[in-house]
């Protein structure tokens, strides 16, 4: 079966049918005019999420040939999205978002990272936004400096250590759900004095103090757990207050062997994270939120000999939130035939995941496109006519 490239926009973005008719036609400028209390969440799926398993091109008979053991049918629970693609059953709890136009998928995207297919270099490229190996700051950190409104520059990594995406010269924080700075006021003052002469410690102590107060209020008397839902709940709580940007990671996507159960578990985690964010933010804030879910690269189009898939190139991203062009499968679908695959093995990347990130930064925070293509994502091709900004 051929995939008709029917609804291609200027840059060839395939837009699936679900909500196109219902959504108002918005010009790029109207996105940029949103008042300044938007929220932005990045979720990094570490280990290379198999986009072809999450959003399966099930109407293409080649898919089942490439993946005799992994491809699902609607009889096996695959959830049809638009007649061509189907959603993995472990993501069923996301369907209300899809129907409400608060969820989209982007197929066949990647960073410019090619050939070596290493998780670590792939994640470095994803988080630094460049292929410069000596770059030690993350794109989300660099973006902070270019946000016109100072109040938007409040970012937190939900983690005990700082992930690369938010590491860098601009102030960002890290706080884990289980962390607690339970001490008397005078004891805290003494620690502040202890750290006064050490710039790094003084800074993180000040941040710890502030975040701890907010986190105490969010947790209330609930148990402080370490799970995915705890991370999402804390992120939502902080974003409901003064924070505008949050980031966390979900592991468990490196499915070389017996992919089926492992992938279903990871997708359940991801669905839980997104639903918990929505619930924690409440309808009003959720309406101003964009959740960007990205991974270092996709996996091989063919399943391997161990019931899994190996490192690939073109992958998938997710957008969720009230502030996105929702209910769509974005991206230009490259096809699955031998000559359409990259090196005869991977889904051909047809879009740059950094452009998607740039579009969301532009949309949420009015960062000037020329900043996005120089400092944030050096060398990226992006402007306010990007297909990712079209509703």
């Amino acid at each position, binding site marked *: 079966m051929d995939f008709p490239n029917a609804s291609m926009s200027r840059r060839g973005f395939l837009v699936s049918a679900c909500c196109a008719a219902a959504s108002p036609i918005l010009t790029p400028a109207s996105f940029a005019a949103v008042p300044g209390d938007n929220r932005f969440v990045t979720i990094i799926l570490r280990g290379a999420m198999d986009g072809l398993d999450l959003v399966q091109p099930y109407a293409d008979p080649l898919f089942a040939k490439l993946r005799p053991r992994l491809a699902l049918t609607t009889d096996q629970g695959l959830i049809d999205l638009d007649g061509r693609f189907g959603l993995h059953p472990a993501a069923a709890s996301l369907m209300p978002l899809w129907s409400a136009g608060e969820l989209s998928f982007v197929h066949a995207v990647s960073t410019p990272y090619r050939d*070596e297919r290493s998780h670590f*270099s792939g994640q470095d490229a994803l988080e630094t936004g460049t292929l410069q190996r000596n770059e030690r700051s993350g794109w989300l950190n660099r973006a902070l400096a270019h946000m016109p409104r100072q109040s938007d520059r409040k970012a937190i990594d939900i983690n005990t*250590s700082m992930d690369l995406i938010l590491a860098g010269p601009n102030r960002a924080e*890290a706080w884990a759900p289980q962390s607690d*700075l339970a001490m008397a006021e005078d004891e805290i003052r003494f620690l502040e004095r202890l750290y006064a002469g050490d710039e*790094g410690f003084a800074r993180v102590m000040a941040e710890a103090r502030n975040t701890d107060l907010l986190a105490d209020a969010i947790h209330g008397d609930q148990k402080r757990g370490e799970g995915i839902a705890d991370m999402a709940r804390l992120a939502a709580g902080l974003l409901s207050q003064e924070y505008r940007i949050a980031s966390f990671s979900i592991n468990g996507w490196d499915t070389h062997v017996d992919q089926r159960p492992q992938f279903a578990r990871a997708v359940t985690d991801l669905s839980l994270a997104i639903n918990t964010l929505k619930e924690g933010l409440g309808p009003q804030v959720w309406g101003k939120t964009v959740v960007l879910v990205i991974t270092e690269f996709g996996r091989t189009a063919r399943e391997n000999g161990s019931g899994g898939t190996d490192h690939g190139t073109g992958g998938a991203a997710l957008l969720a939130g009230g502030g996105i062009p929702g209910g769509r499968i974005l991206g230009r679908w490259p096809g699955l035939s031998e000559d359409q695959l990259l090196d005869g093995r991977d889904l051909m990347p047809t879009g740059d995941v950094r452009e998607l990130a740039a579009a969301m930064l532009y949309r949420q925070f009015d960062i000037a496109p020329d900043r996005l293509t120089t400092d944030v994502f050096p060398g990226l091709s992006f402007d306010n006519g990007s297909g990712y900004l079209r509703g």
Partner: protein
Amino acid sequence: MSISVPTLAAIRYGFGLRPGEPPPQDAQALLAQLPPAARAELRFPREGITGRRETAEKIIALRRAEAKATQNGKPNARLRQTTQQQANRLYRGDAVARIAQAVTSPYGFHERLASFWADHFAVNADKNLQMFMLAALHEAEAIRPHLAGPFRDLLKAAVLHPAMFFYLDQNRSIGPGSVAGLRNGRGLNENLGRELIELHTLGTGSGYGQADVRAAALILTGVGIDAPRLDIGYRPQRAEPGAFTLLGRSYGGEGRGEADHRAMIDDLADHPATARHICAKLAGHFLADVPPPEVVAPMVAAWTASDGNLTEVYRAMLEHPRAWQVGGAKIKRPFDFVVSGLRALDMPEKQFEAMMAAAMPQPDDEDEAPRRPKKNAPRHRNPGFARAMTIWALQRMGQPVWRPTSPAGFADDAASWLTPSQLAERIAWARMAAQWLAADREPADLLADALGDAAREDTIRVLGQAPNRVHGLAMVLASPEFNRR
């Protein structure tokens, strides 16, 4: 500010000062630790190397029999559960022992190198049942005996080990054109080939490509675990036939066989990019997040001159003046923080060993829930407390023993570990330690024990005015200089 060489030697190149243990006097003394340390007794695996191989082989055999029974429609859920619990318990016991080993060993430099190399050749105990039993074995028999000799011996021992094979799916990798591959359609798994090049030897960005990764994986086909024994063996029927080119050299072809992968590993060990990669990583671990090129260059030269002898590489680093420059550029990782904290506390041996025993899995706890403590038992004998001070602390701080989230090991830079959340965890640990393990001590004495002449004037002054003794003690361990090296 100046800090004496012995203090720096203990803090920067060991797990910190420990009362009653004379610090190494100089570079020579650090290097002199290596031969006796390799012969010293090791606390893990707890049944010893031979004992662990026997236990693990037995449990794996039980599981294999159960898997067969399941195929015949007779699954044994109870057996699956008990073997999983046994494996789990072995892991948790080893993890506690790993911490105790680093605390009590007088060979701090050797212990730090063991941590470095176990991290370089990272395996993850979480991978499966086998790995819960083998992660400790990997460090004990593949890493520690080889960390002071030729790199290529260490490389072969660390890579050609059942733990690495389970972790990186080598057992699942079958030459697609081999007898076995053609028979059952199973295929190649590139994991081990990729990490061998990217992480263990050449390093990323050193000029190899996907074709090299694939060639390495193909050359490795045929090598696998010689079940039911936990040994590495070679099965020609799984080996991809033919000749393969890796970085311009050819392997296999006529006489394709067992020697091919060994020749490849030796060539990768000898490659100049490997020397550069490893020397920079060592300097990055011990000296500064961005490895000082003036130290890396003589390390690489020593590597070349000595044919990859690691003691000579360490010597080149330690004999460079930059190695003794004061600055505290490195933030201790969580494991180093906890171990150096336990060393500084100077618990009586009996009390320390009782706490380690309490942290071990208990006969009656089948899961993570700690046994209810006996009434009036001292705190250090309380399993929940003992674990909170050791394995659980590392879990919370993000560096659980032998469970890195990727084959690249744990992060090793200040940006990753100097964060508000990390600081909160360390303060909490310091407060627990101060309250329950050191409450009868004077903060100034603990400061002298923990930091010697590395204590800052600021810290001495603030401690002198602390609002209470416990907080004073906690501030020693929470101080910037105790968390830097």
